[in-house]
């Protein structure tokens, strides 16, 4: 089983993801440069956080045209697991692999802090080990995490159970003060219709060891290991 972690110019969580996969989970990972065109036989792809291409134009807008994204798109369309974290989520949105778009946080503030997210659905490769409604304490670090989709798209996301993570209070209840960026419906993460592509703004890879403040994020990566193991990889 191998993870591919895509490195764009300006990625800065690529090594956090690499550390979490290799040192914490003990799995094989390879950093793949954005100008590469193949994923080196990986079984799961991580688009990491950061500021690809300096966030010029719009977050993720330039990165989505990187050569590697054609391979990522084919990989995703074949049903393989792909996770976009923070900037990686923004890239998936720009690439059209997930619906919607990101706006600047409503308070115009870059938010860098721990938040609590509730796992809304457990039938994705990245939430399979979670219990429904489980609350995870995971950090965020973003200025543009205000998820937007038009009312029809939002209704379809809810009806198809594609909202995977929602910002909540530590006790798991929804409240305006638990939403750090103004995201529609308190959305912190979603999946595609086929459920194999997941994007989220919080950083599970930075919350895999208790000395770093939380190990709640580990279950997200552990889930995909479990999902792949079940499929004999």
């Amino acid at each position, binding site marked *: 089983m191998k993870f591919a972690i895509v490195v764009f110019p300006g990625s800065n969580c690529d090594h956090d993801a690499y550390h979490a996969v290799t040192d914490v989970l003990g799995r094989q990972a390879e950093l793949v440069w954005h100008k590469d065109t193949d994923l080196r036989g990986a079984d799961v792809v991580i688009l990491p956080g950061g500021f690809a291409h300096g966030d010029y134009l719009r977050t993720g807008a330039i990165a989505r*045209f990187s050569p590697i994204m054609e391979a990522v798109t084919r990989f995703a369309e074949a049903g393989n697991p792909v996770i976009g974290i923070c900037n990686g989520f923004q890239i998936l949105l*720009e690439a059209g692999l997930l619906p919607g*778009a990101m*706006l600047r946080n409503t*308070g*115009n503030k870059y938010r860098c802090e721990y938040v609590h997210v509730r796992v809304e659905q457990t039938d994705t490769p990245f939430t399979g080990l979670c219990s429904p409604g489980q609350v995870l304490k995971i950090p965020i670090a973003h200025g543009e995490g205000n998820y*937007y*989709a*038009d009312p029809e798209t939002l209704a379809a996301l809810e009806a198809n159970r594609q909202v995977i993570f929602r910002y909540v209070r530590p006790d798991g209840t929804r409240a305006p003060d638990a939403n750090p960026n103004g995201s529609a419906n308190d959305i912190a993460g979603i999946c595609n219709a086929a459920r194999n592509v997941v994007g989220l703004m919080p950083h599970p890879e930075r919350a895999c060891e208790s000395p770093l403040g939380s190990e709640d994020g580990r279950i997200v990566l552990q889930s995909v290991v479990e999902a792949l193991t079940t499929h004999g990889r």
Partner: protein
Amino acid sequence: MKARVFVTLKPSVFDPQGNTITEALHQMGYSGVEDVRQGKYFELTLPGKSEDEARALASEVAHRLLANPVIESYRIEVGE
């Protein structure tokens, strides 16, 4: 030929930056400014293109890259 592309957030999309600028202007005493919407401006240099060709090319790149149609709309002006 030059094409000028103006990209703005759709009217239905909240613009936190525009909102902050409006508030600052009100604080400065410009009560006559009811609202500000912040946008982006691009100038494309398109040698050897006719006006129609320039407009078509600018529309294509605006749609594919300069604007995100989910949240933004754009307007194009063509000229020398």
